[in-house]
């Protein structure tokens, strides 16, 4: 991904803006990294160097925080982020079957991304909507009371949103 021309410059700009937002306060390190993760869907290596330099922190400290918390990923994530809640309530209502279904359909394991960079599959400890388990969060949309058939519908909806997006792009 870093081979895209201008990517380094883009990272530099974004990191500068994000670090500036928190006035380079060392206490804001986690939130800075979260905002970078949100912008790029992962933490590019270059960004970690820039954060360390701009916040005047040792790179080791930035790296330790980036690898400690679940919210961060050092690998690029797919365009669609499918996240299955595996909290206790979802577990007793069959979250494992939903994970297995997605593993089969997307041919990846949790934590992985499809080779075409379309889908990433993850699990999360609890999304806090336990009454609706099993629950899936896909591209910031919550899908409750999931069954295998609902997974099919959800994946169809995600790929349809792609087609619409492409059509709109072509039309423009």
């Amino acid at each position, binding site marked *: 991904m870093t081979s895209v021309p201008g990517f380094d410059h883009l990272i530099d700009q974004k990191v500068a803006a994000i670090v500036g937002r928190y006035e380079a*306060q*060392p*206490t*804001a*390190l*986690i*939130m800075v*990294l*979260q905002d970078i993760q949100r912008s790029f869907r992962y933490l590019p290596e270059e960004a970690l160097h820039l954060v360390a330099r701009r916040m005047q922190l040792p790179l080791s*400290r930035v790296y*330790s*925080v980036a690898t*400690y*918390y*679940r*919210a*961060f990923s050092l690998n690029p994530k797919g365009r669609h982020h499918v996240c299955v809640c*595996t*909290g*206790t*309530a*979802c*577990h*007793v*209502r*069959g979250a494992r*079957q939903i994970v*297995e*279904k997605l593993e*089969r359909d997307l041919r990846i394991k949790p934590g992985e991304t499809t080779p075409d960079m379309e889908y990433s599959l993850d699990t*999360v*400890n*609890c*999304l*806090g*909507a*336990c*009454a*609706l*388990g099993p*629950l899936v969060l896909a591209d910031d949309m*919550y*899908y*409750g*009371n999931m*069954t*295998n*058939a609902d997974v099919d519908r959800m994946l169809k909806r995600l790929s349809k949103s792609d087609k619409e997006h492409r059509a709109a792009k072509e039309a423009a």
Partner: protein
Amino acid sequence: MTPARLASPEALSQLRAQLTRRRREGEKIVSVCAGTGCLACGCEDVLTTLRAEIAKAGLEDEVEIKVTGCPGPCEWGPLMTIYPEKIFYVKVAPRDVDLIVDKTLKHGEIVERLVYKDPVTGQRYAHEDKIPFFTKQMRLLIGNNNLIDPTSIHDYIALGGYQALAKALTQMEPEGIIAEIKKSGLRGRGGGGYPTGRKWASCRNTEGDPKYVICNADEGDPGAFMDRSLLEGNPHSVIEGMIIGACAIGSHDGFVYVRNEYPLAEKNLGIAVAAAREYGLLGKNILGSGFDFDIRISRGGGAFVCGESTALMASLEGRVGEPRAKYVHTVEAGLWDKPSNLNNVETWANVPLIIERGADWYAKIGTEKSKGTKVFALTGKVNNTGLVEVPMGIPLREILYDIGGGVRGGKRFKAVQTGGPSGGTLTVSDGNGSGNGDAVSHLDLPVDFDELSRVGSMMGSGGMIVMDEDACMVDVARYFLNFLQEESCGKCVPCREGIRLMLEILNRITRGEGRVEDIDLLEQMSQVIIDTSLCQLGGSAPNPVLSTLRYFRDEYLAHIEDHRCPAGVCSDLVSHAITEACNGCHLCVQSCPSTAITGSPKELHAIKQIECIQCGACYQVCKNGAVKRVKRGEGEAVQSRARVAWQPREKAQPAVTA
């Protein structure tokens, strides 16, 4: 109205009077829940349609739409309450909205099919204050959630918000506030149950400057979401509690540490903090009292251990969230080694109530040593799931049956898990012989801090996950250990290595490779981990194993000795088979990912045992209960019997009409 800083308690009272005057008698308010649960049910579309329909009907001036937080029963969402009648609609879809506007808003009639129907009795309840799910609760903390737009400080003030703060700042001394909290008997709602007043007193009495107050909103327990709902639905109650606490302790800086997974809670809290600042309820010289206090919001990074106080403080400092040994308590040396007082969201939300209505009133609720109410997240296999707030000491039976409406789908209760990964499992046989064998049942257990600890579980943050006969207790224990193994920070050996080794044993048992001596080994290792772990994550990690061993030992033995999973959950010990109850609906064939099911429509179906991957998809879709999970290897025998017993359904009796 222009926001003006409230310079005195009188200004606050004036504003309140002004706001209540503006609320006309009998004004129609439609409140729509927009908590995370209802968002997942599609409430946004309902709101859009509602706005359009109300505009179309020309009712904009007569009807106020209120977007609120979560009133509790998430599974009935999207929820809509119409005031002043308190008409309560469940599962509202956008296409229902024009009917609601036409019938209910214009003519005051009730749309019967949107009314809550009791799943057991079938009785319909049209009004919020008649539904047993609500009437059996004591909703002191979450009761206002569907009356308040969390983004409007006016709603909170109109309902008497910040009056407790005014009282604390002007009529009480810091010591008096602490004495009142001590007298109320309030105990920490985050899990430990430490007396809040005592904690405040130690923090106040410690030398050091500055002092910090912290709100722990890192609700990491899977299966608990009361803190999310409070922050999303009524953030000002938490802020007010924190200001009062800070005043008592002598702190001027507050932090709220919110979970990364709760974007809406963070957003609503952020709006609330900004509004409180604008009105002079945060910042310098609060209500003209000379007291300064402000709150900063910090986002968590998604680590369960950060719910532990020392780890949370490390994370607040922007470091890796590892706990430390607590030879020195955080009230003496916490955040940046300064005296720090940390309480959970729900604890803070209780504070304004106690100050406003008095410790004596509060202490009347609950049991001798556990005062007040507790919000539980009732989830799993009960009919009514959601947030329920009950007085401490209520028998478990009332929560499960009177409020929860009993077990789902005609099955039998088996267990209730409380306290999250650090808690334990209670057994609840409902008298019909739940298969536990022995007579132990905690159905009549009064639910409070001490009783739950006595039976080997704990209050925790209030997750209450109900399981029926389909749950395997070994699998549940394995689930929690797997969770804790992933979440262990790795700093101390007993937790990092011990949990991993225990998990290995449990994995072995669920694969049918367990040994009889494994049970003793699990118990011994549990004790070592409890005794030697650095923090409470490790110290309580073996609880799920110990409590399931205590009450469901026969299930462990079935796995180990008979290589059988009685509940049919552990996929290595299970075969799926179709019985003669099959009506040939063909649904299972369509759902099967490995084309292992054969059979033509209206004929008996069968699972090719060798091709079945035990994914359970057929079990999930079968409406006749024809798919059974049997002991591994016995699938074919069951299906042969089915071939003999099966009868085609064409000549089925026509349905008897009533």
